[in-house]
Every structure is written in C-alpha cells, then in structure tokens.
C-alpha cells in the first residue's frame, strides 16, 4: 500500500501511522515551524490530508491506501471546499465512565458496577469484562455535572453524561530543553519505544540517550535488543548534558558537556513523567507540584483519579541544560525559546498565566502538552522561586485538535438552521422570485421580469401597487392567538394603546414597549370575540414577543386568565393592495360587501374564496386601499391562485419585501428593528397618538414621564430628501449639520433609504436629534468623502392626508 507524502510515494504496512511509515522510510522531517521555519520532526510536525482534515499529527494519523498528505509550516489551512466527510454524534448516559484503558483503567472498569463505559485514545486492546470499551476514542473535554465529550475515530463525537468519572489517563514522558533541541530525529524515548513496540520500526540505528530517569535506560536497552547501537548515554544525574546538536532534516551528531562529539541519527530524551491532568483541570480540579510533577490535588465531586495520573515517581527533574538560551526551544509548536521566557520575566511577568499570554507558550496545536511543565520549571529558575510556588496554567478544553466539522456533526446546512417556507413558496419560485432571508424565513425580495435589476423591478412593483393592484405574501408575520376572560385587560397592559374598547369585528394598530419605554414590536390586533384576540407581530419579533408575553403572564400577572398560542404557521396572509384591490376582492368573494361603508378601514370580515373560509381585514401598510386575506395554510395555494386569477384583468403584480419597504417608508411607517434600535420611543417615531393617556398603567408608561424622555433634542424619525434629487443615501450614513474640525457632532443616522416611483426621486428615513423641529432645514450626509445636502421633511412623504386608503 502506498500513500503520497509531499509528492513522494510512501509505502506503508497495514496499521501504520504516518509516523511509522515515515520512520520506516528514514524520513524524520515533517514540515517546518510556525515562525522560524525550522525543520520539525514527528513529535512537533503536522500534515494536511488533501481533501480531508487539516493539522494532523503523524503519530495519530492512520494511513489509508492512496492517501495524499502535505506537511505544514506550523499552521493548518482553512479548506475552501466543504468537508464532505460524514460526522455524527452520539448521546449516552452511564453510571461510570473510565477514561483510559491502561492497567489502572481496566482495573477500575472491572470493579465498577452498573453501565460502565471505557474510552481510550489508543488502538484496540483486549475486551473489558462488564464494560463497553471504545478504543481510538479521545476524551477531549470534561465539563459540569459529569459531562464528557469524546471523539471516536475522528468522526463521531460522543456526548457522555456520567454519574461517576474515573480518570485513568496515565502519564506522559517529559522532554528536556537544550541547545538545538528542535531538530528532527530528537524525540522522547517513549515515543520511539511506542513506534518500536506497535509498528516494529526502529527510529534510528545510532542512538544517543539523554536522560534523567531510569526509564530512559530501559528504552535504550530495547533499542539495543532490536538491533540499534546505543552510542552514548548522558545522565543528568551525573551532570552530563547535551550542549549542541547538528543536522538539517535529521540529527547527525550530539555535542556533550564533557566535550565529546558523537555521531548519531537518533537522540532519545527522557526528562521525567507528567501525569495527564488535562481533564481534571477542565473540571476545575487543582494541581500541585509533588516534587516531581504537577499532580491532581483536592477533590472534585464524582471524579476519581487512579494510576499514573495521580502523581509521578520520585525523580530529580532537570528542565534545562546549560547553553545559549536563544538556541533552547521550550515550545516547538510555537518557536518559543528560553530567551523568550527571559524576556517575559524581564518585562515583569510573575505568573505562568501571564507568561503564557506574553510568549504564546503552550498555545500551539498540542495545547502545551509538550511545553507547559518545562516552561514552568525554567520560569521558576529564572525568577528564583520554587516551581511549587509558581504553579502552572490551568487547562481548558479541548484536550486535542478536534475538527469543527466533527463538533457540528449532522447539524449542517438546513439541519443546522432550518429554512421556513410559506405555504405558497412554490408559487414564488415558479415566478422567478429572488428570495431573502428574514430570520429563518425565505421571503421573496422582488420578482424580476426578464433581465430587470432589483431597482428596476422595485420601481415597477411600486408603481403597480400605487396605480392598480399588487399582492404580497405576508404569511411570515407573527400571529399569536390570545384567549381568556382577562385577555382584554392583559392586552391593555402590554400595548401602549387602549385595546379593551376595541369592538368585535374591528382591528387596531398597536405598539409594544419594554418597561424602559422603548419600542419592542408593533402590529395589528383583531378582536375576534369578547375574550378572543388575534395579535400580529413583526416577522422577526414573533418568537420574542410570545416569550415576552408569557414571561409577564407567569411572573407578574399569574392572576390573569389568558392563554397564548402561536398560530403563525396556521394562517397564511396575503395583503391585496392598491386602488383596484376592491375589484379583485369583489370578484373572488361575491358574498362580501366590499363597499367603503359596508367594509370600513380597520374592520375585518369572514367570508369565502373558492369555497374556503377566509378572514379579510382592511389593514394597510402602504397607505393604499388594501385587504389582508387570511386563510388556513392548508388551502393557501388555492386562495393565492384565485386572487391572482381574479387580478389578471387589472394586471395584478406580486411584489416582494423590497417594494413593501419602499411603500411603507413613503408613508413614514417604521419597521421595528430597522428604523429603531431599542433606544427609540413611540413618541420619537411620531407614534405618540398610539400611546394611551387614559390607561392607569401599561408597560413603558412610567418611562415616558422621565425627564430624559421629554428632551426635545431626542432623536426623532424624519424624512430626508437629497437636494440633488438623485443620490440614494446609504443606510447607516451619519447626518451632520456641517463639517467641523473632528469630532464632528453627529445629529443622527439614515435608517431606511430607497428610490421612490411615487416621488420620482430617492428619499430616506432618518433618526435625527430634534428632527421634527428641523423640518424644512437643510442638513448634510457625508457619502464617500462628499457631503450630500438633504432637506429634512416629515416622515410621511406620500399622501399625507391619507385619502388613498379608501381607494
């Protein structure tokens, strides 16, 4: 079997990791370092899988025939194409979770009762009696209440809730820092020993051992037995050190503190043992120096540490050999040297958390597993303090590199954020609508005819509505059914207007404010019965408004007998808008009296269209004569088709959200969330008429009495007409009186801006300080380095007398 590594064929054997295959081929260099571009070996080098995962450690990557790999310069790449690998998640609840399937983990698992799960990052070992055992599964995060995330085969995330957790994570060998210690061919003795045991690969033939532990000797002995020659053993306990190394893509020689130069092709390092305490630390567990290493201390409810993870065998740790600090690399993944630590200490940093942030030590892809303890030991020496006193940084998840795609699992695309489509979505698609996202909804933005641009389509749609008849799919409007004996009293409390006096059969526009008096949402309310209302909210505000109402009902007014039900998707809503809308409605609803007297503005009527029950309300969001046709969504397509067919003789024009925005802006109707930002009151919007003076209290009322609310210099909604009659002001542009030396006093900003077919020129809405007093004045809007003079006008620019609403 063959893989491709940096364009070269790399033969490998079944079960090989990339590291095993590379060393078999005598290749030690894997990429370069992140800042200095120095060669890196198998412990600190990383590779990309072409068309697959990025930043893979050669020690963990299992080869597949034909796999293509590219070594990396210390950092990964963001793939341009979506990762097509299928990732998944699994949720389990267990009595006992054991992390680590070494001797201690197996013993703990076999002694445990109930449902027992064992996860281990290594390859499969023997089955464990009475436990589910997941090899090749790395626990990478431990969170509150026994919640553990583990990644199996780099493909499946296990979300585990465990009543008890046993950490049998073992210990890992620590390296030592010496001059030129970052060359390929230098590795911890246990890394080389693991490759020998598992893959029968000899990482080198001429071996030098640099050790402070007896375990180093054991590794060297195994290498001798396997056929390598150990050229020299340097023991820190005898005062022997490596003081320099040579070699480019692989070590060729070691210089010793006693002046010898020893040719070699492998340098094994053994500096001691560090318990794998990351998961313990994730959970908030404390670490203490036990004389040899940082070990778990104290207690955490539900978590036990066993085996080598509890602490280290006695040793006399040496962190750093004598030599030039600038050539001694502490963190090979970040190119941080002892000289960098000296700079950090010289800059006055006294805590490892600060040193970490100053030097970036321990922030590489191995998250400090190679460097943290060395960094603490060397920093303590530099500061002249005890390492026990200095301490180490705490660890946070994830323990290892986890692909974002694995965390996402199947929650991608539509499964991540489902698109909501109205009942007549297919009709819009058939007409070639261009859609926009409004919250989760897909709404037609405009319906281009032929090669029309958006601007051209919108001007055509606007003109059609103002001169004949248009129709829009308003089904995304939030709808809340409000029922109960106290429904009217409740609505009086949450709207600024008086709702309780609304007769059955009528509708009313209402404004909702927060307790701070700022506008939260708006819409119409239909009174369907004495104890029954239908509330419309904005499309984007529907869920929030329902939550808001529920919160008040439950927490402040539990005595009110009111029941709220979301009916947004149950009702489809089709506003039929324009001077010819009456004719269209009369044609499809022959039983309905559509006369001005028989069906006045802000009334609603039940009738039938093509045999389907509909509720029609005379509500207008454009200032034109308009009828909102509401129908059960099951029958929405039939009714939509009937309305369009009946409108055919009048050239009925379906229009999208863009035209709706222009039409409402021409009338000065604000869109909550576009023309407001949570700091705008009804009075600022010119909606003071919608604020009841009679009601003793409602949400927001007290705030209207605040001194600041009376300030005539509050920002108010006004219209702006660019004097040149041609410039479309960018939304968000600042409004100023004139340019001064900076800082230029800002008067406000443009909130909505469009071309208008009715006005024959562009216009805008803006929030401007003391805006209503400035009507008639000329202000300036800076656009791309130029000042555009604008005339301040009333926010109502089309049909200020309101004569068009009756047709």
């Amino acid at each position, binding site marked *: 079997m063959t893989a491709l590594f940096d364009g070269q064929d790399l033969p490998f054997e079944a079960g090989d990791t990339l590291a095993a295959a590379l060393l078999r081929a005598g290749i030690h260099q894997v990429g370069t370092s992140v800042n200095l571009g120095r060669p890196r070996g198998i412990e600190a080098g990383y590779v990309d899988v072409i068309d697959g995962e990025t930043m893979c450690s050669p020690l963990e990557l299992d080869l597949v025939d034909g796999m293509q790999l590219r070594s990396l310069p210390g950092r990964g790449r963001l793939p341009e194409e979506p990762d097509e690998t299928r990732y998944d998640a699994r949720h389990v609840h267990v009595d006992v979770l054991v992390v680590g399937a070494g001797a201690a983990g197996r013993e703990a698992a076999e002694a445990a009762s109930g449902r027992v799960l064992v996860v281990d990052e290594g390859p499969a070992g023997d089955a464990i009696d009475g436990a589910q055992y997941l090899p090749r599964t790395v626990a990478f995060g431990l*969170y*509150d*209440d026994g919640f553990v995330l583990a990644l199996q085969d780099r493909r499946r995330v296990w979300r585990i809730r465990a009543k008890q957790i046993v950490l049998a994570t073992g210990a890992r060998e620590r390296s030592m820092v010496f001059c030129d210690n970052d060359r390929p061919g230098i590795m911890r003795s246990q890394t080389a020993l693991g490759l020998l045991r598992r893959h029968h690969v000899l990482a080198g033939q001429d071996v030098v051992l640099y050790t402070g532990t007896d375990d180093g000797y054991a590794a060297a002995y195994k290498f001798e037995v396997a056929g390598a020659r150990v050229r020299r053993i340097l023991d820190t306990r005898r005062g022997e050190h490596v003081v320099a190394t040579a070699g480019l893509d692989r070590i060729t020689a070691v210089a010793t503190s006693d002046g010898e130069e020893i040719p070699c092709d492998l340098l094994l390092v053994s500096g001691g043992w560090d318990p794998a305490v990351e998961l313990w630390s994730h959970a908030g567990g404390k670490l203490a120096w036990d004389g040899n290493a940082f070990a778990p201390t104290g207690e955490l409810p539900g978590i036990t540490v066993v085996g080598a993870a509890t602490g280290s065998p006695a040793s006399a740790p040496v962190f750093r050999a004598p030599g030039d600090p600038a050539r001694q690399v502490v963190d090979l993944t970040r190119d941080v040297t002892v000289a960098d630590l000296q700079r950090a200490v010289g800059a006055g940093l006294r805590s490892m958390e600060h040193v970490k942030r100053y030097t970036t030590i321990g922030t590489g892809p191995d998250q400090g597993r190679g460097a943290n303890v060395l960094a603490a030991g060397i920093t303590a020496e530099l500061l002249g303090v005890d390492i026990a006193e200095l301490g180490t940084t705490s660890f946070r998840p994830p323990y290892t590199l986890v692909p974002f795609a694995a965390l996402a699992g199947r929650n991608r695309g539509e499964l991540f954020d489902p698109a909501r489509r109205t009942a007549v979505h297919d009709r819009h698609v058939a007409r070639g609508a261009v859609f926009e996202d409004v919250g989760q909804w897909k709404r037609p933005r405009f319906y281009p005819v032929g090669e029309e641009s958006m601007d051209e389509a919108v001007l055509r749609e606007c003109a059609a509505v103002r001169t004949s008849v248009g129709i829009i799919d308003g089904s995304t409007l939030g709808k809340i059914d409000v029922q109960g004996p106290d429904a009217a009293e409740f609505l009086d409390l949450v709207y600024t207007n008086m709702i309780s006096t609304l007769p059955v059969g009528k509708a009313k526009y209402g404004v909702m404010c927060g307790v701070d008096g700022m506008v939260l949402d708006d819409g119409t309310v239909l009174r369907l019965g004495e104890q029954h209302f239908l509330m419309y909210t904005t499309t984007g505000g529907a869920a929030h408004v329902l*939550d808001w109402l529920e*919160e008040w009902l439950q927490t402040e007014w539990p005595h009110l007998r009111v029941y709220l039900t979301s009916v947004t998707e149950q009702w489809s809503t089709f506003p039929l808008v324009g001077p010819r809308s009456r004719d269209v409605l009369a044609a499809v609803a022959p039983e309905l009296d559509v006369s001005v007297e028989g069906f006045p503005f802000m009334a609603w009527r039940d009738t039938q269209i093509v045999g389907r029950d509909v509720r029609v309300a005379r509500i207008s969001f454009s200032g034109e004569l308009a009828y909102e046709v509401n129908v059960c969504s099951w029958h929405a397509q039939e009714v939509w088709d009937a309305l369009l067919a009946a409108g055919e003789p009048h050239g009925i024009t379906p229009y999208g959200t863009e035209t709706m925005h222009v039409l409402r802006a021409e009338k000065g109707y604000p869109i909550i969330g576009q023309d407001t930002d949570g700091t705008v009151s009804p009075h600022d919007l010119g909606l003071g008429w919608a604020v009841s003076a009679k009601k003793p209290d409602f949400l927001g009322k007290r705030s209207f009495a605040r001194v600041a609310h009376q300030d005539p210099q509050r920002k108010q909604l006004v219209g702006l007409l660019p004097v040149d009659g041609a410039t479309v002001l960018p939304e968000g542009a600042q409004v100023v009186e004139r340019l001064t030396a900076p800082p230029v006093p800002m008067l406000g900003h443009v909130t909505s801006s469009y071309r208008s077919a009715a006005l024959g020129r562009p216009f805008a809405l803006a929030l401007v300080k003391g805006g209503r007093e400035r009507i008639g004045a000329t202000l300036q809007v800076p656009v791309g380095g130029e000042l555009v003079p604008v005339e301040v006008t009333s926010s109502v620019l089309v049909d200020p007398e309101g004569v068009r609403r009756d047709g």
Partner: protein
Amino acid sequence: MQIIDCPWCGPREETEFHYGGEAGVAYPADPAALSDAEWARYLFFRANPKGAHTERWSHSAGCRRWFTATRDTVTYGFAR
C-alpha cells in the same frame, strides 16, 4: 453544561434553559408614585453578589415555565 432541575420536568440539559436575571424584582405596585431615581433603580439596578444568587430561569425549550433557583456565582452550581 450543567444539569438544571426544572421543577416541572425534572433534570434537563442547560441548553434547554434561559436565564432571566435576579429574582424577586417585582414590578412596582404604582409606578406613577415613584421618583425617576426609584424607577431607574427598578429598571436598571440588580444585585451582583459573589456566592449565592437567587435567579429566574425559564425552561424555554421544554415546558416554557419560569421558576426561581439559587445558584452560586463562583462555582456556577445550582443549589440542590
């Protein structure tokens, strides 16, 4: 990711809940009788203790009911 005890549904994942701020801040009986300063205190001022904190929570992705819980702001843990 804690487990939170909903008084109606029992123990559920934290992601099902929404935090609702300090508990026990009642809507004033007669807002009109309050000074601006008193009203501002109701609107904007909340306790921020180190340690036990009584809070409102809503089981928003479950039964949608509000309830009061005590939580330690140092450990984040809920009192059981």
